[in-house]
């Protein structure tokens, strides 16, 4: 049996296996077929209606300050390119990469398990592209690569498999935006993402979701970080959605590997979020920082998980969740877990859920803001993406993106 056949068999065995968390979605109620969409020559040739929504999730149609672009609409990859001068980086569709590189079998489903649940199964059995991004050994790609996964057809299920590799000593930044066409109200997105941070390499990955209100989203993410490597993952979602359940997991397998997860969520309307992150510290000197800032407004419900496991000595990790409730119908359920399995691991957690402090509101009001203005300022401040460890220009890019996203929503 070939390696691919082996995976197909494993996937087929779990076709109906519900996920451990989140509402069980009946995938069959979504359509699987979508028309082919023709490629575009460059990002500025995107149709206006697509470009407009992509912009709201951080995709820059001018490609300024970007090293390359991947753009997928439904099941069609309409653009995958890197700027000419960016020799050290490669952007392909995963389908093409698997055909092109035999060695990719050593990465395919190695950071995330194909038999996790029906959604990983679906992705293996009916995979529709996804992106492959690789920074070659020693390459420092300081400008981010942008990747957009776009649903353009009403009621479609999109399942993609992404693989991101930073080879030894390289640096790679990715801004990934996921969104829908204005005419789409419902659909489903399944995105498997596997990250491989090799020795001394760095990946920062900023994912911005902006879905239609009746879309179900089930990302499945795994990361493996080798010696001296750094993985920084930011997740941002400010728009209402039907449901999102995700629990990205990182394993620090090499000495002094570092991981940072940062989650910013503004839940509104009837949105249901079950999000979190999990880190296994498996090598001496490895470190993890996991922070979540979540706001629940209207009737939204947010479950904010975190699981930090210290498997060996001389490891350190901190898990933090701050939740802000706006209104009486919203809820936040923070579930931080820490698990020490070796003497000499140093793990801690902090969780706080509450409403806006009256003292803060009154303070701002005594400076001349009315109650709504004061609330908005605190909310925006609460979601301020002060993410340590990002280069300045990237911080600015992410901030600008968040500003654009939040202006429309809040």
């Amino acid at each position: 049996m070939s390696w691919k056949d082996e995976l197909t068999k494993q996937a087929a065995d779990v076709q109906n296996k519900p996920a451990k968390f989140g509402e069980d979605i009946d995938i069959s109620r979504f359509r699987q077929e979508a028309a082919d969409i023709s490629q575009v020559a460059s990002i500025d040739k995107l149709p206006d209606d697509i470009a407009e929504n992509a912009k709201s999730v951080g995709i820059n149609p001018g490609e300024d300050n970007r090293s390359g672009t991947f753009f997928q609409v439904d099941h069609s990859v309409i653009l995958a390119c890197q700027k000419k001068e960016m020799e050290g980086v490669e952007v392909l569709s995963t389908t093409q990469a698997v055909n092109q590189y035999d060695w990719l079998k050593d990465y395919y489903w190695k950071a995330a398990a194909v038999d996790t649940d029906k959604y990983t199964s679906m992705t293996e059995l009916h995979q529709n592209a996804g992106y492959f991004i690789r920074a070659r050994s020693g390459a420092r790609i300081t400008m981010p690569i942008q990747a957009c996964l776009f649903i353009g057809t009403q009621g479609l299920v999109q399942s993609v498999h992404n693989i991101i590799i930073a080879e030894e000593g390289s640096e790679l930044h990715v801004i990934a935006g996921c969104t829908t066409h204005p005419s789409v109200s419902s659909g489903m997105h399944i995105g498997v993402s596997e990250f491989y941070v090799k020795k001394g390499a760095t990946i920062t990955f900023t994912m911005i979701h902006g879905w239609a209100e009746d879309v179900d989203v089930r990302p499945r993410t795994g990361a493996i970080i080798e010696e001296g490597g750094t993985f920084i993952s930011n997740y941002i979602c400010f728009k209402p959605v039907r449901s999102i359940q995700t629990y990205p997991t990182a394993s620090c397998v090499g000495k002094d590997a570092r991981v940072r997860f940062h989650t910013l969520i503004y839940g509104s309307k009837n949105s249901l979020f079950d999000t979190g992150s999990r880190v296994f510290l498996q090598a001496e000197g490895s470190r993890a920082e996991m922070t979540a800032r979540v706001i629940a407004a209207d009737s939204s419900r947010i479950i904010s998980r975190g699981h930090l496991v210290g498997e060996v000595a001389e490891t350190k990790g901190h898990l933090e969740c701050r939740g802000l409730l706006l209104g009486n119908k919203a809820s936040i359920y923070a579930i931080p877990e820490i698990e020490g399995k070796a003497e000499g691991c140093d793990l801690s957690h902090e969780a706080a859920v509450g409403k806006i402090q009256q003292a803060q509101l009154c303070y701002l009001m005594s400076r001349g803001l009315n109650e709504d203005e004061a609330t908005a300022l605190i909310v925006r401040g609460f979601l301020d993406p002060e993410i340590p460890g990002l280069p300045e220009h990237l911080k600015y890019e992410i901030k600008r993106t968040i500003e654009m996203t939040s202006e429309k929503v809040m």
Partner: protein
Amino acid sequence: MNLLEIKDLHVEIEGKKVLNGLNLTIKQGEVHVIMGPNGSGKSTLTMSILGYPGYNITNGSITFAGGATSAGIELNSMPIYERARLGISIAYQTPPEIRGVKLRDIIRIAGNHPLWHPENEPEETIATPLLKKVGLNPEQFRDRDVGVGFSGGERKRAEIAQIFAATPKLMILDEPDAGVDIDSLKTIAIDLGEYIQEHDCACLIITHYRHILPYLKPDIAHVMCGGKILKSGNPFEIFTKIEEKGYCEYLGLCPPGIRDEVERGMKI
């Protein structure tokens, strides 16, 4: 012109009477000092002037001549932000920390300017000079979150920068000298004194100490106890007497039970 006029003010907090018939009139440009033992109602007075929720006025009135005419406007049921816009500004004793809200932006808000945006204003021009004026290095403090990790002195300076930005008609200084070292205190007091002179701004200072008074040149001091003003007069004379005798003897009353509290409040 009477800027602030408080007549027979009765205030309750959660049903508990705190102010019991307080009268106070402040004219434009006048500097008043309020002192008194802990629990005498000083903070309640300031919160009532500012319009904090939960401070229920059961009797009496607060009027403020903030409008275009000199006629006083009744503040009793006016929201906090409208009072701020009329020209009442406070430097809090212990301002809250607000994560994610930048010091430069709160200073701009106090001055009724929009939040800073680099695309409209490459170099920030509103908060920067004010931070400099109060002795906070703008490069270091512009982007700091309000109050987060500030020392006692930095906190006071940040508050005063907001007052300067607001150009109020009445400034309230709630223990501007608490938790500040003597050198910082002097520079803060000099800044404030100059500002009050220049702008003919009225000032209500709550304090337990006399150190800053020479710089602020108060016109009158009031001693509060039991939710009203019991004595008013020359600030320096009153301080001297209280330092000598203590509040109890000075005020000629010392009901059993509150004596300890009175002494605790008197670390002069």
